[in-house]
């Protein structure tokens, strides 16, 4: 008993080293392979001066904030003896299906990392002082993890990871991962395409720490390329409301919307845990273009839900007696009872001889000091996600590449699909983050207009004018023309065209395509102006429902252009050539912006035409692109 009691502190230390080693290696691997898990862009400019979490100092390798997925490890990987198998999975198009279609995705394991603490059947006699042994183990683990970090950058999969994570383009593939304590062996064909590399193990008496990888030697077999769907195009003449809601939804079309890899946001409910796989979780979220059924959604919910864990422990090996300061129930059975019986974190621990290794934290009673904080961090993230994410089926990261992405939204006509706010306006408008604000504003307009004009059946927003925030000079309007199944047209104006905006500041112009998020104060101020125009709208209600969307837009444009000018400027767009060009459905209200150069307007027209073409191509029609 005395021997065992002497062993306990040492074993506790070893257990801490091993579990932190597993955690660190998982962090390194996921950080270097799964773009969606990267909490921030680690440009490498961060100096050590900035505060480093204690938990991040393990093995003297500061990696930055851990993804919440790693918090699960503490809960999951109770048993340090179990191997931790990390599958890096490439989600890509099947070779047979040339186009991206739902259900056409294929998942291939391109790398399989196995990190484990190998415990020998026969424990050799300990030679030397255990603290010295642990020191050596720790030092060698540092080197091994450095090597792992470097190796991650030399293997073929790193290249595609970099493509996904750094490029602003969208691709037709994604990388997800799966962590498990066991794995299905590779087929012979797969094995033939893979090579294995094992790092020399680190002695960690009584066992040793091993890392090995089986990886695909080449990824050129896969058709990995930028997504062929409509590329997001910056509309230089976009004019939108300053209080516009961010674009919420990018519903998938048949062509595959955008090949972004979703961050792990726990939007979907977890699949039930199959009993035969108690120790695994995966990142199953990827683009809508891929079938949901193909997700290797085994086991736990996405890792961003640190708790509660729906795991069942049917018969896990028990290495931790109930005095464990972990926050999950003690496993009932003890499989390896004859082996390590006292893998218990000691209640009192001192960093014996490890201070010179800058082991921070030193071996402490609490297992992972930062895990509670990570959990708490994850929650605000979740709530933040929820408040930001519109109720759409496909949440997208709010990245710039999704900005101004035009796509038909057939799911909800009331949902405003608007470009994100400009930074300034985002700050000033507290309601901008909420999607319902646009809708409520809309309904307000509707109620106001109910007496003035006939309700438009299919085209909700048509004919309604939204006051432009005259105070805003951020230069963003949102033009919406939506109904079920109809495309949205966004007009954008870059900030470089602010001078144009300034001229309009004193005009209470109501832009018919504006949908929402205009300050109510401005709205009220422009009532009289709207009242003027109301008659025109009522007399010329748009033909909707029967005619095509383009025709509706064209009608609207005609209406606007025939409206009395706000300023007397004969050089407005009244030329027939312009009109005919606009017949195709490109809407513009440029005529109202006066004075204005013809060149500007022509440029705007061009951009509108491009928009139209993009929309048409989106809807599957073949159009000839006039410009690249």
């Amino acid at each position, binding site marked *: 008993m005395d021997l065992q009691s002497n062993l306990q502190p040492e074993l506790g230390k070893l257990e801490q080293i091993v579990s932190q080693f597993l955690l660190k290696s998982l962090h390194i691997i996921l950080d270097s392979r799964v773009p969606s898990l990267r909490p921030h862009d680690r440009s*490498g400019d961060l100096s*050590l001066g900035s505060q480093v979490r204690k938990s991040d100092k393990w093995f003297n390798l500061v990696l930055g904030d851990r993804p919440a997925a790693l918090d699960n490890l503490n809960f999951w990987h109770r048993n340090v003896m179990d191997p931790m198998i990390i599958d890096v999975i490439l989600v890509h198009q099947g070779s047979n299906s040339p186009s991206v279609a739902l259900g056409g995705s294929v998942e291939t394991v391109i790398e399989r990392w196995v990190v484990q603490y190998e415990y020998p059947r026969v424990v050799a006699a300990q030679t030397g002082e255990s603290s010295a042994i642990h020191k050596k183990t720790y030092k060698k683990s540092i080197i091994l993890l*450095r090597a792992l970090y470097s190796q991650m*950058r030399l293997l073929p999969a*790193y290249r595609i990871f970099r493509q996904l994570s750094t490029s602003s383009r969208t691709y037709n593939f994604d990388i997800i991962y799966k962590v498990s304590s066991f794995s299905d062996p590779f087929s012979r064909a797969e094995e033939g395409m893979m090579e294995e590399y094992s790092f*020399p193990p680190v002695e960690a008496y009584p066992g040793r720490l091993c890392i090995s990888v089986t990886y695909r030697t080449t990824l050129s077999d896969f058709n990995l390329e930028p997504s062929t769907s409509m590329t997001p195009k910056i509309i230089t003449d976009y004019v939108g409301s300053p209080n516009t809601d961010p674009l919420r939804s990018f519903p998938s079309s048949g062509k595959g919307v955008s090949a972004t890899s979703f961050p792990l946001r726990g939007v979907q409910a977890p699949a039930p845990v199959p009993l035969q796989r108690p120790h695994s979780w995966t990142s199953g979220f990827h683009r809508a273009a891929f079938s949901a059924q193909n997700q290797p959604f085994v086991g736990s919910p996405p890792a961003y839900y640190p708790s509660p864990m729906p795991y069942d422990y049917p018969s896990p090996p028990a290495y931790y007696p109930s005095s464990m300061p972990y926050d999950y129930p003690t496993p009932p059975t003890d499989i390896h009872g004859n082996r390590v019986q006292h893998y218990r974190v000691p209640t009192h621990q001192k960093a014996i001889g490890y201070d*010179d290794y800058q082991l921070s934290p030193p071996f402490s009673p609490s297992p992972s000091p930062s895990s509670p904080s990570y959990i708490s961090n994850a929650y605000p993230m979740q709530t933040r996600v929820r408040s930001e994410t519109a109720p759409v089926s496909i949440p997208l990261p709010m990245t710039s590449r999704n900005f101004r992405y035009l796509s038909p939204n057939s799911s909800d006509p009331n949902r405003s699909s608007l470009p994100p706010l400009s930074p300034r306006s985002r700050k000033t408008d507290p309601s901008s983050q909420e999607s319902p604000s646009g809708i409520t504003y809309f309904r307000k307009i509707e109620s106001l207009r109910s007496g003035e004009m006939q309700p438009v059946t299919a085209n909700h927003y048509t004919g309604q004018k939204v006051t432009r925030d005259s105070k805003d000079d951020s230069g963003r309007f949102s033009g919406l023309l939506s109904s079920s199944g109809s495309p949205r047209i966004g007009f954008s104006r870059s900030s470089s065209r602010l001078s144009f905006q300034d001229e309009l500041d004193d005009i209470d112009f109501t832009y018919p395509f504006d949908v929402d998020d205009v300050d109510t104060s401005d709205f009220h101020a422009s009532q009289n102006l709207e009242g003027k125009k109301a008659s025109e709208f009522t007399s010329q209600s748009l033909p909707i429902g029967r005619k095509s969307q383009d025709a509706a837009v064209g009608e609207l444009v005609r209406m606007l252009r025939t409206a009395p000018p706000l300023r007397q400027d004969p050089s407005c767009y009244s030329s027939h050539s312009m009109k005919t060009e606009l017949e195709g459905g490109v809407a513009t209200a440029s005529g109202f912006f006066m004075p204005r150069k013809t060149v500007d307007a022509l440029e705007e027209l061009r951009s509108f035409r491009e928009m139209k073409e993009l929309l048409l191509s989106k809807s599957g029609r073949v159009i000839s692109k006039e410009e690249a």
Partner: protein
Amino acid sequence: MNCEVCQLKDLEVEHFEIREVLRCILHTIVFHRALGLVRPKDVDLELFDVTYVQCGDVELEKKIDEKIEHFISWVEKHPNKKSQICLSFYEVKNKQPYWFTNKIERLYWEQWYINLNVAQHPKAHSSKSHNSKVVVDPGEEERIARRAAVEASLREVLFQIIKFVNEKKDHVPPIPNGDGVVYFPHEITIPRKFLSSS
């Protein structure tokens, strides 16, 4: 304590590639030997599709760059030669201090020899002038092939480094104390045999 020596694979490089290649190799070695607290920094090479890891320490970067410049100037003075640069790690041992002698002995515990064969320039130029009419310059293809070969060799060298640092770990001394990034004392030199042969 024995001194482990690692002779890295020969690399055929052009003059303008020396800087990047050496930076990559030296930083990789130091990264695996700087066992103090480190925030790794990924650096992409411009000439090759290779990413290596630095320790993220500005001082170290400066020091390495200085040595590389020194090496390049040496190579310029001695063209057409096999060049070698040596990165050595040592421990500082104070011999018993006497009144007049305060010997500080360096005990080298690891040495890395980076072997470079710096190719000549004229080849590239001549191919250009001869094939000026040809649309696809065969010299260009050759360059591309050469570049790919160098990249592959560089990767092999990096793998070699990783393998070596992992296989030989027993000789690494205890990590010295200190704040921030801590390195084992090291020096970068051009071996004497090369210096004297000029």
